[in-house]
């Protein structure tokens, strides 16, 4: 009987115009999202419209400054800066030349300008410029490496000459780290551009440095350390595999992000359907039509609950299919073979999962949240028969949960971990990760979530069974 009732409920939902309006909006958002990724990102996954420096404005400002300055050296510095900016304009903002022009050419340009009579300085500048323009980044990296090597030698000499100098030892350590990175760059041909390999290397180095300095005394410090470990491992994996797993304009990224990107729509659909199935029936009197049929009220409310979840599942599937098709059209389906990477905090390992499996995990992790808000909505619907109340309270809970969690963390309000909207956050524990709030763990959430769920479900059933249909 429950399946027959669910079939009836589904038919009724599919006859409502409002559900098509929200599905239409959701799919429109889906299209706009995919289209913007297609329009605004290049093949490497870089955003095309990131804020650019206004070089012309900088040149204009420097020229004005130059006219005011009398000192020869200062004039030369400004002239050098202007020359470099003019040169910079010729390179793409994503190129290593754009990022490193000052580091690699400043000295040569300055020398050329200050010693305008000196041919050696001019020749040196021209030689460097050719290499710079010819994309010979290895030459510059090797130059950097030689400089750092020499600096290391010097520091070592100074350390030998002096007694224990902590400052020098620290500097030596930093230089040695820099040397390692440079050697890695040279060996793996990683330019200092905006490409994913450079990004991964920068993030990797940054995470490793922070980890070396990081403390692990408090819970928050330990959580931060875990995040650094994740950052390091993921970027290390990208550097080793040389695959741009974090590229956002792929069908993989679009599908993997569905449960987060479309959460608002899913919540609204679930609440709308739940409220519609309870409050509308009470308000229009059609519950009488249903409740005088030979079915127990328990089965009726259960069928309504399952139907709301079924419609949610259908909505997720709808977005999944639509996103898959749009992703395929805009970006191709090649990325499906690559999979997505996730960091397993428990194993301290990066896992490569098929995007469908990763999507399924993220859906499962979110399911307790949807089960609970659907239940709360039905309970409020039976209690108040008001569509607004039964939709708005769970919606507010869903929207403000992340902010409430931040407040709890920043003000150390540990008692808040007992709130139902904190215990439903199972996606926080996906791949053995931890919650930001101390004491809120997977086991704790399982226990308290189950308690809340059983209590609310019990109340819902009892209330629905005992509720009289009032006279109009």
């Amino acid at each position, binding site marked *: 009987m429950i399946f027959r009732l669910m079939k009836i409920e589904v*038919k009724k939902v599919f006859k409502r115009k409002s559900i098509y309006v929200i599905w239409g909006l959701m799919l429109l958002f889906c299209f706009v999202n995919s289209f913007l990724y297609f329009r605004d990102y290049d093949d490497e996954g870089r955003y095309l419209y990131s804020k650019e420096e206004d070089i012309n404005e900088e040149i204009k400002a420097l020229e004005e400054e130059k006219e005011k300055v009398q000192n020869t050296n200062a004039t030369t510095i400004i002239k050098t800066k202007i020359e470099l900016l003019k040169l910079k304009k010729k390179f793409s903002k994503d190129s290593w030349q754009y990022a490193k022009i000052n580091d690699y050419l400043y000295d040569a340009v300055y020398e050329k300008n200050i010693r305008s009579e000196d041919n050696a300085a001019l020749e040196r500048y021209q030689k460097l410029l050719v290499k710079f323009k010819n994309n010979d980044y290895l030459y510059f990296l090797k130059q950097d490496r030689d400089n750092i090597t020499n600096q290391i030698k010097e520091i070592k000499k100074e350390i030998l000459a002096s007694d224990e100098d902590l400052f020098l030892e620290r500097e030596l350590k930093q230089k040695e780290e820099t040397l390692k990175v440079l050697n890695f760059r040279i060996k793996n041909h990683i330019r200092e551009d905006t490409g994913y390999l450079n990004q991964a290397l920068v993030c990797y180095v940054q995470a490793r440095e922070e980890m070396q300095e990081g403390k692990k005394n408090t819970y928050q410090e330990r959580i931060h350390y875990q995040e650094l470990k994740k950052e390091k491992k993921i970027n290390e994996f990208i550097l080793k595999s040389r695959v741009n797993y974090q590229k956002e304009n792929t069908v993989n990224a679009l599908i993997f992000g569905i449960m987060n990107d479309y959460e608002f729509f899913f919540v609204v659909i679930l609440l709308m359907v739940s409220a519609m199935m309870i409050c509308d029936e009470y308000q229009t*009197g059609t519950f009488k*039509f249903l409740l005088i049929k*030979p079915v127990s009220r328990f089965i009726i409310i259960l069928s309504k609950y399952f139907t709301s979840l079924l419609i949610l599942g259908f909505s997720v599937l709808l977005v999944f299919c639509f996103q898959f098709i749009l992703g395929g059209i805009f970006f191709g389906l090649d990325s499906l073979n690559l999979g997505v990477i996730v960091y397993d905090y428990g194993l301290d390992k990066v896992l490569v999962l098929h995007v469908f499996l990763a999507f399924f995990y993220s859906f499962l992790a979110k399911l307790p949240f949807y089960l609970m808000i659907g239940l709360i909505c039905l309970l409020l619907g039976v209690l108040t028969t008001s569509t607004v109340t039964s939709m708005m309270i769970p919606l507010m809970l869903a929207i403000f949960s992340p902010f409430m969690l931040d407040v709890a963390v920043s003000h150390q309000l540990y008692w808040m971990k007992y709130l139902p909207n904190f215990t439903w956050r199972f996606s926080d524990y996906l791949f053995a990760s931890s919650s930001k709030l101390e004491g809120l763990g997977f086991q704790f959430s399982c226990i308290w979530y189950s308690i809340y769920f059983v209590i609310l479900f019990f109340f819902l059933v009892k209330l629905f069974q005992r509720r*009289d249909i009032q006279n*109009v």
Partner: protein
Amino acid sequence: MLVLECRNVFKKIGHHVIVSDLSFSLNEGDILGFIGPNGAGKTTSIKMMVGLQSLSGGSIKIFGYDIRKDFTKAIRQVGAIVENPDMYMYLTGYENLKIAASFYQIDASRIDEVVRMVGLEGRIHEKVKNYSLGMRQRLGIAASILHHPKLLILDEPLNGLDPEGIRELKDILLRLAHEDKMAIIVSSHILSELESFCNRVCIFSRGHVLKNATIEEIKKITEKEVYQLEVSSTKLDSILSSYLVIDEAHIELSSTKENIVNILKALLLNDVLVYEVKKKVLGLEDVFLKVMEASHDF
């Protein structure tokens, strides 16, 4: 065969008694009229019978099944319209009937049959929101008789129906009661309409059942009691202790058949001429008002 048995049914909300000590039974083929003003407890009683409201006391049994303990078994034999024929407005009439049919083993031919029976053939595939109240009543009746219930409960089914619709509905109900042996409860404010097809009535007032009797019983009582006289003068206080002046030539009084002769003698002896003596046939409405008056006195 006993279809419905209500015994000492009691309903209280807070301190307010909605229905008190409702007891009656209903056999196959009976058509019982529920009569009473608004707030008398008719709808609440009906809601308790179909499980839409809980009982504060007493018991309701349908074919021996207690509505509280064996709800699904009890309600399986019941078809009902409670308050209004509340159907899904965004669905067509046919879709509504299909939903109702899906709770029982009913095929499409039965749906067509009831649609024909209530005369909705031409409009059944239109959305219910486009129906008039009368059409919705017909659809509600179709939905409630779809599964051949043994007990049909209709709360104000005549609302919104035109005279032709009322006549058709009466025919349908009489046929269901006589041919299918269906027990029927009908509540209505149109008392004169109930009179023509109910064989029993329950008169409700302020949560109490004031009268529960067959139509014949009620008619018998009233036929014996009320006489209408055309007289030369209506100032009869010195002769009669209780009478009602209808107009300047007519009075009404209650009396037994034997005593009316004595009253006539007394009038004539006091020079009051009596032109006509008529035994008044009371309708259900008169009985209702009379019972209500008595209850107020009480």
